[in-house]
């Protein structure tokens, strides 16, 4: 039987172990279970298969998934080149097959990389504290909302309609617990930025936080300073969301926000049909005890050398149980490591150059197209198209996946699509898209 390759013990080993246990058969290991719990039949699953057959199965599934197509989809998931180094590092068994670094003396590798990750996320976002990573960008949003509620003692969250629609859905699911109150505010139909006047009407003394995304779902860069001023005037916090981390290489960091959450998929993490990715949450020093999830801190070992360990775990569920800041018990360590390697490879100059390439390509793609909104954009923007579906269908025949038709999330934008260019968008393919849209 093929699966035996993962089971290292021989029948002789099994017999010896059984004897040491004082048992006569393997069945005796579970014969004490109540009869109504035991399953009397074998599981209805096919017999195990070999490594070769497994590789072949997934190759065939992969072949059904449009490998070799150019793509202009963004909307929270971006096609960026993945430096070879990232997979080389995360494939090392010492990282890949290790556990959450509770035992600091034999996990300094993981702990040091997380400390570097936290530092780089702080540097990129202009925040003072970042945690060891979140599940992804979408789940970081309700965590930020809950954190803002703990800090302010208020229960109302105002979220912009220009925040990624699926991130908002995740926030609304959280709000079903009857303790979080979420309201949505609209956008300026000319600029594609948030409607500041509408926000001003909604914000009140119950508002814990205002949640905006920049660049937002339409690619429009928001005036965060104006939102921060308004939120702070009412004693609320500003939560800034990002989905395209490469933009941080070029855009001013969201320093005026109180909490920054976002998605690092752009940093060497394969699109992988939606995950796994890694989210971030970063904030000001004064809120450190309210941040959810794992935190790594610097300390010393018994020899007086610098060392790292998990810290402030009294915030966490395994110590605080029902009084914890969150039920989160893992981060996305390996994905965060991938992003850390990516940030090291590109570094200070590289991230900026990469961001410049993305922005320049997107500017080229947008040039001459009928842009829906006027606000500046980084590498995504909305264009009008009489029928986005027809444009995409025509492009598909040329092995190009076009933009995201916006009607599914914004009924009023049925005649629009969201296009994204990255450093991997070739001029020839962009020209084909421009032609199809003009």
């Amino acid at each position: 039987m093929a699966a035996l390759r993962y089971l290292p013990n021989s029948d002789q080993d099994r017999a010896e172990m059984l004897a040491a246990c004082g048992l006569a058969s393997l069945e005796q290991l579970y014969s004490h279970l109540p009869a109504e719990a035991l399953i009397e039949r074998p599981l209805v699953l096919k017999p195990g298969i070999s490594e070769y057959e497994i590789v072949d199965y997934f190759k065939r599934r992969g072949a059904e998934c449009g490998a070799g197509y150019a793509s202009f989809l963004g909307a929270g998931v971006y096609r960026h080149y993945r430096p070879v180094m990232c997979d080389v590092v995360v494939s090392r068994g010492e990282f890949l097959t290790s556990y959450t670094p509770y035992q600091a003396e034999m996990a300094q590798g993981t702990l040091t990389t997380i400390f570097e990750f936290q530092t780089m996320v702080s540097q990129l976002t202009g925040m003072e504290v970042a945690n060891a990573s979140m599940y992804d960008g979408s789940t970081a949003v309700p965590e930020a909302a809950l954190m803002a509620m703990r800090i302010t003692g208020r229960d109302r969250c105002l979220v912009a309609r220009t925040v990624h629609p699926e991130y908002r859905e995740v926030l609304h699911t959280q709000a079903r617990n009857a303790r979080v109150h979420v309201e949505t505010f609209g956008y300026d139909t000319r600029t594609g930025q948030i409607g500041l006047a509408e926000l001003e009407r909604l914000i009140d003394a119950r508002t814990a936080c205002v949640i905006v995304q920049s660049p937002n779902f339409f690619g429009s860069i928001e005036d965060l300073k104006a939102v921060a001023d308004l939120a702070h005037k009412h004693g609320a916090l500003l939560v800034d969301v990002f989905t395209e981390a490469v933009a941080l290489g070029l855009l001013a960091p969201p320093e005026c926000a109180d909490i920054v959450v976002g998605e690092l998929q752009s940093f060497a993490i394969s699109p992988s049909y939606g995950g796994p990715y890694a989210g971030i949450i970063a904030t000001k020093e004064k809120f450190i005890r309210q941040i959810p999830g794992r935190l790594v801190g610097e300390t010393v070992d018994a020899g007086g050398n610098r060392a790292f360990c998990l810290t402030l775990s009294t915030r966490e569920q395994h110590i605080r149980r029902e009084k914890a800041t969150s039920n989160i018990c893992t981060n996305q360590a390996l994905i965060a490591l991938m992003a850390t390697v990516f940030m090291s490879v590109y570094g200070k100059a590289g991230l900026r150059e990469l961001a410049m390439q993305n922005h320049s390509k997107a500017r080229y793609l947008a040039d001459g197209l009928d842009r829906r909104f006027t606000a500046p954009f980084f590498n995504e923007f909305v264009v009008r198209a009489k029928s986005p579906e027809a444009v995409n269908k025509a492009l598909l025949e040329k092995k190009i996946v076009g933009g995201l038709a916006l009607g599914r999330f914004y009924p009023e934008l049925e005649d629009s699509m969201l296009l994204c260019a990255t450093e991997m968008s070739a001029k020839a393919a962009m020209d084909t898209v421009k032609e199809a849209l003009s």
Partner: protein
Amino acid sequence: MAATTGKTRPNITQNEKLLFELSTPGKRGYQLPPMDVPEADPAETLGAGNVRDEIRDFPEVSEVEVIRHFTRLSTWNYGIDLGLFPLGSCTMKYNPRVNETVARTEGLAWAHPYQPESLSQGAMEIVATLECMLGEIFGMDAVTLQPAAGAHGEFTGIMMVREYLASKGNPRKKVLAPDSAHGTNPATAIIAGYEVANIRSNERGMIDLESLAAAIDEDVAALMVTNPNTVGVFEQDIAKICGMLHGKGAQVYMDGANMNALVGIARPGDFGIDVMHSNLHKTFSTPHGGGGPGAGAVGVRSHLEPFLPAPRVKLADGRWTWDYARPQSIGRVRAFYGNFGVLVRALAYILAHGGEGLKKATVDALLTANYVRARLEKRFKIAYDAPSMHECVFSDTLQEARGVRTGDVAKRLIDYGFHPYTVSFPLIVHGSMMIEPTETEPKQELDAFCDAMLAIADEIESNPEIVLNAPHNTRTPRVDEVRAARKPKVRWQRE
């Protein structure tokens, strides 16, 4: 000549600075191709106020320094690839390497979640196939793969319970959790908007039926139960317990962290569980990666199916499609469709074993845990006499008499070449030592581990100091965790 302790011999390790300290202006580890379009002027296209200055203190290192940096750091770590990793409740089993290969299959790794369904059939089939197989393994009618981790699966499950009860007119107020439960259970109940009531365990390490009966009333929404529970014991009265909750219109949630003890032997759906999660990074071998990514598949009985997160994959006219028309759904718990890359690895694991192989793995997991118990129970006090399933839990009472606690034994184990067991959990066991070897440990490795534990028991008699001050052989001796928390320093800053 350096001395050998257990499996280890001290060797030279490399010191390594932080990336920021290695950094030298002008160094780079990348090269981008020349652009085929004109370069934008960001001050003009974005507005000068929107453009950042340099990213201060961001690293500047060469490619050679990058690979050396991370390789050196990796040598300070321990993983399953190096040896037994007996963390109880964590199921640190071998992570088959082919699973890493197939997760990087080009069409799958580069699939965008919004690409047309016509170009996503293979990925959707993987999701549907895994849902179906897990349903069979759990004895559940439907499975969602959207939750990103076990605790996230708990949240998903309890929110479904809430919506289900709300649809009957009252979401109710309380969730019950035994005092042996993982900390995530009570934390989840709170996040889902419930109060928590703790249920006492009895002298057999199982839920105390009298305490439970006293706690169940019309305000109880659900009981969150781990089975086998966190002392590695199967809840013998589980069917009765489920009946008690159902009798009052409440639901039973099973934390499937310990599912590795049951696959192919018993199915939660068959013994009365309404909703459960299973950590695919435990039972189904996807790598822990130093703390994620994981995936928390959630299985439900049919009455909860309408409340599953949307969208659901379904077959229509012979093609896979995402079904968003789910009016009773709790909504999304995560963007897109879950940690797909983790799902690929879990499916590869199930395909490799098949039904018979999965059961064989489970039986071996029970065997290794019971073997370790048998070898250690003369020198360490077993917490409960009840038969162990896939893990065995000891109390440090015999060691405490000599001033040595579970945390000290754990640190000394490191000197012998092993990652420690789970320390001080579950909370109901005094000085808990929770050991889960898993089925992928050869007897030689188990023997080396037991020999190490017994040698430590001897040391505690003859020379407790050596245990109290452990570890001695690691490059990093005991780390001062108290100091780290006193004035937290969570990022590097230029002096």
